[in-house]
């Protein structure tokens, strides 16, 4: 694979998604629909489904509706819902699993988040460490939205002036972690 290259949607993707969703469902099975997670979430205002509602749909196995929502992609992993859930459910981790599931399916409505993470991790695969300017430029290029970088331009300039980022052309890098990434991909395709 190379996480960067993997993930063409194949015919088995749907069955895989259902199996993965089963796992997530098992994580939240004891949910009593109390709504504490919704009340705790700092990003709830921007979500289309409240966390409580989304967990309900997960429990009902309504995969398509869950994956069509933006709710899980708006989780910023603050762990407040996990801390407060009266059933002690690993909700943040379950949100992470949904993100992974969505990433494997390359859902169009989650495109920008996906590209961001993909470019980030591709940079790590090549260099071992993150080269911030490189992955940001690749991300902007692939978003094909010429106005997007402008929203960050002021910040970019201030960072450049302070020598905190460098302008470097994307390079192939030393392939620092390629073997490790390939091994992980191979192991994940087995399970």
């Amino acid at each position, binding site marked *: 694979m190379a*996480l960067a290259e993997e993930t063409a949607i194949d015919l088995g993707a749907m069955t895989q998604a259902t199996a993965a969703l089963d796992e997530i469902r098992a994580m939240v099975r004891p949910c009593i629909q109390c709504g504490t997670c919704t009340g705790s979430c*700092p*990003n709830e*205002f*921007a979500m289309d489904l409240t966390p409580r509602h989304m967990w309900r749909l997960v429990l009902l196995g309504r995969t398509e509706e869950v994956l069509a929502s933006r709710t899980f*992609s*708006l989780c*910023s*992993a*603050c*762990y*407040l819902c*996990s*801390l407060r859930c009266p059933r002690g459910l690993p909700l*943040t981790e379950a949100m*992470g*699993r949904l*993100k*992974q599931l969505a*990433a494997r399916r390359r859902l169009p409505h989650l495109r*920008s*988040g*996906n590209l*961001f*993470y*993909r470019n*980030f*991790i591709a940079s*790590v695969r090549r260099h*071992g*460490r*993150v080269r*911030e300017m490189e992955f940001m430029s690749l*991300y902007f290029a692939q978003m094909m939205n010429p106005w997007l970088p402008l*929203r960050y331009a*002021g*910040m970019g300039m*201030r*960072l450049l002036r*302070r*020598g*905190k*980022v460098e302008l470097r052309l994307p390079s192939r890098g030393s392939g*620092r*972690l390629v*073997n*490790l*990434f*390939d*091994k*992980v991909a191979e*192991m*994940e395709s087995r399970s």
Partner: protein
Amino acid sequence: MNYLYYPGCSLEGTAREYDISTRALMAAMGADLVDIEDWTCCGASAAEALSELLTLVLPARNLALAEAMDLAGRDLLVPCSACYLNLRRVEEKTRVSHALRDRINEALSVEGLVYRGQTRTRHLLDVLARDMGAPVLGRRVARPLTGIRVAPYYGCQCLRPYPAFDDPETPRSMEPLIRAAGATVHDWTMGGRCCGASHMNTKMAVGLERVEALLTAAQGADVIATVCPMCQMNLEAFQKKALRGTEASPVAVVYLPQLLGLAVGLDPEVLGLGLNLAITPDFRQKLDRIPTAA
């Protein structure tokens, strides 16, 4: 007070002053830091969005390297909260599941590495609050930050899901340190609320909303003290944008070791203060009025 040290990628780039000031403060307090040799990225918040196994294997590689060092008995000091959580998660999860440790080790075998589960990852705030402690800091204060009001900002991932050193809902561990530095604590309830994390990159409107809420609650403080590069970046670099059209005034934002470093008499240059993006004129004036250490 000697530690292994994992800086993480941000501390080599956008958060250089966090690295600089952590090293300077720890040295001033007589602590020795040794970097993990050949460390690599912990996966940040990206690995979690893509692959469960990678989320564990990337940090585990660094823990395995730490164990292989001569100074393996030392605790591992980590200033970045996201790195801290990623490293700590591996320790916590492999402690309860040996099967998981075997799985991680199968992946690490391609690098010739083994993780045995013997590391102890500690957040910088934990080390400052408990290993050093306010009384020791207080004795070293050469330039009390009298009249400076500090809003302690903890963010999320040094507190949750593993509350190792503070209350995960109402954190207070910074307060004794701030008082020992001679400054005043800004009393607020937002210290452990989320800054929006990486939303600023992918969903800017949502991130801006979080930052505005925090900056509004910080009104009256001269400076916000942070312990995480992502919190710091969100609060300083997007401050103007977040406050546009509101009544709120700008607030300075610095890393906790920068603030404490000033109090022990270190030079602002030595603490990388020139690299911060949000040092307000008011904060600078107040600082300038405090006599430098003799």
